[in-house]
């Protein structure tokens, strides 16, 4: 097992190196730079001297390999540097946003689980009946709606409905408050995007639950249980469901990793100050340092989640760890 863990850990390194190279050079292919944007972006006369100076100060005039080395050494020593847009240390920029993204990811995953597992079970048990069709249509519809459209409609709907009922229009708060400070305000902001996102991501998990359960239901031991005359309910709950959950857990784990930094559009619609929104802003502002740091963090989370999932599998299935 240790050997397997060591091997899997080693395999993470090339992925991280690859991602570092990719993001570094991809960013530098994007035309424009942060100094031009900051100094000329408002249409005022921009002093070329000042733009030069700004580039100089940010190290943008250094040789590209020097810049790359600075980036890699910084990442290895956990010194992410300063944002080129705000001048703040990147850890300071990311702190609160990470907390928000983590909370949203947890809440959305929770919503996805409570939607998808019951629906997946119903859909499998009632395979090819109208109930199955309704459930599947409902879950597939979740991924068919453009997320920003859904978000805008939710907010507008809330404003209109609350005004009609109470006379005073209400919308979710637009700034993040930590749940430890004010749980009510925190929840009233995050519940909406969490439900919208959770519903969206339940579609894949519902399908996975359904097909995994269908597969298990055809196994011999289920047939034996049926032959013994056990109640169908007990067969599903005790035997089948437990054994079919593994792929579902996997898919949920991977989605969770994606939610960290992947909620690019939803965060903008709800004005959530999370990693996804920061991501878009940093790319569009040519803030190399910040984008690089964010990509490396997101890739690291992704790789690490995959590692955990693999370990989990290996622990359950000895064939994997000895092959």
């Amino acid at each position: 097992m240790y050997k397997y863990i060591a091997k899997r850990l080693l395999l993470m390194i090339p992925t991280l190196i690859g991602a570092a190279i990719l993001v570094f050079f991809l960013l530098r292919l994007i035309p424009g730079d942060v100094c031009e944007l900051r100094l000329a972006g408002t249409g005022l006369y921009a002093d070329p001297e000042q733009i030069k100076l700004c580039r100089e100060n940010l190290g943008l005039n250094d040789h590209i390999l020097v810049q790359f080395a600075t980036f890699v050494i910084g990442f290895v020593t956990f010194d992410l540097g300063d944002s080129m847009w705000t001048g703040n240390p990147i850890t300071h920029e990311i702190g609160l946003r990470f907390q928000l993204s983590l909370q949203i990811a947890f809440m959305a995953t929770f919503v996805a689980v409570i939607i998808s597992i019951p629906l997946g079970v119903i859909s499998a048990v009632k395979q090819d009946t109208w109930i199955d069709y309704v459930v599947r249509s409902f879950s597939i519809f979740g991924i068919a709606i453009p997320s920003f459209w859904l978000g805008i409609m939710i907010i507008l709907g809330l404003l209109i409905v609350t005004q009609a009922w109470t006379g005073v229009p209400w919308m979710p708060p637009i700034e993040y408050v930590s749940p430890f400070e004010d749980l009510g305000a925190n929840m009233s902001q995050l519940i909406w995007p969490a439900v919208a996102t959770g519903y969206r991501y339940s579609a894949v998990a519902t399908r996975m639950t359904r097909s995994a359960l269908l597969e298990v239901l055809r196994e011999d031991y289920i047939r034996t249980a049926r032959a013994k005359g056990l109640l169908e309910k007990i067969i599903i709950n005790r035997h089948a469901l437990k054994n079919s959950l593994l792929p579902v857990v996997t898919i949920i784990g991977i989605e969770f990793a994606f939610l960290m930094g992947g909620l690019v559009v939803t965060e903008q619609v709800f004005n959530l100050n999370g990693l996804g929104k920061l991501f878009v802003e940093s790319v569009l502002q040519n803030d190399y340092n910040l984008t690089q740091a964010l990509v490396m963090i997101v890739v690291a989370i992704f790789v690490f989640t995959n590692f955990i999932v693999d370990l989990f599998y290996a622990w359950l299935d000895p064939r994997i760890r000895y092959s």
Partner: protein
Amino acid sequence: MVVISESMVESDIEDLTTGNSWGAMVVTMLRKYPLGAFGAFIVFLMIFLAIFANVITPYDPVLNSFENMLTPPNAQFWLGTDQFGRDILTRIIYGSRTALFVGFSCAIIGAFTGLVLGVASAYFGGRFDLIFQRVMDVFMAFPLIIMALAVVAVFGTGTQNVIIAITIPFIPRCARVVRSSALSIREIPYVDAARALGFTHTRIILRHMVPNVMAPFLIMLTAFVGQAILLEASLSYLGLGVQEPVPAWGLMLQGGAEEYAESAPWVAIWPGVAISLAVFGFNLFGDSLRDALDPKLRQQ
């Protein structure tokens, strides 16, 4: 001797891929999978609208006519007009062209490239496979929308570049799935036999391995079409999608949903409905295809 064994190998493949029963299977699917049939119906409706757009609607999708700006739905403009006085229904109908073009281009290019790379990786194995897998890992881990964002920023906006941006992240996702199915086939004796007979790599890959990974490939392909349409809408929301005055659903929704959701809801609602319905259709179709092609899930 050689000739006989070759025909033997091919008949084996016929059995494995269920050969000419493909057509029959489609018919069965329509009967057995009403959801899939409904999805297929939406898809065909879209294709129909796209092909006959200029016959169906009398209006121009691009020309501004400010006298008619933001007209609510009426007998003349069934779904109303947008802020530039263009008929929304017309733009939705023409928009299905853009959606299908973007959707299919991305799906086909992405899935085929993925197919070739995935099968090649599985077939050659060894160091090539190892390196290739690490490269795919990088692309898989890289945030999809950020990749698309960067590609559009590098090449500029416009339909072609949007297609490139959406296609790139599809490739590793397809390659990964195809590779794992191809790996299981690689061990089956007939591929060894074909190799022993001295067939070229290309021939073995194309004639023997590719047909065997068709099921997961087709599932990926249909899923990609829907995803591409949605991604185009997301890119539009970020201002990086297809650009005015091209009729495209995501673009119509971007300005419309942001500014006119209340005062002119028809501007904000209909393109959203079109996107949702199209993606819904492709996903229903794909979902049923998955059921149909996966023998373990078939109702006994």
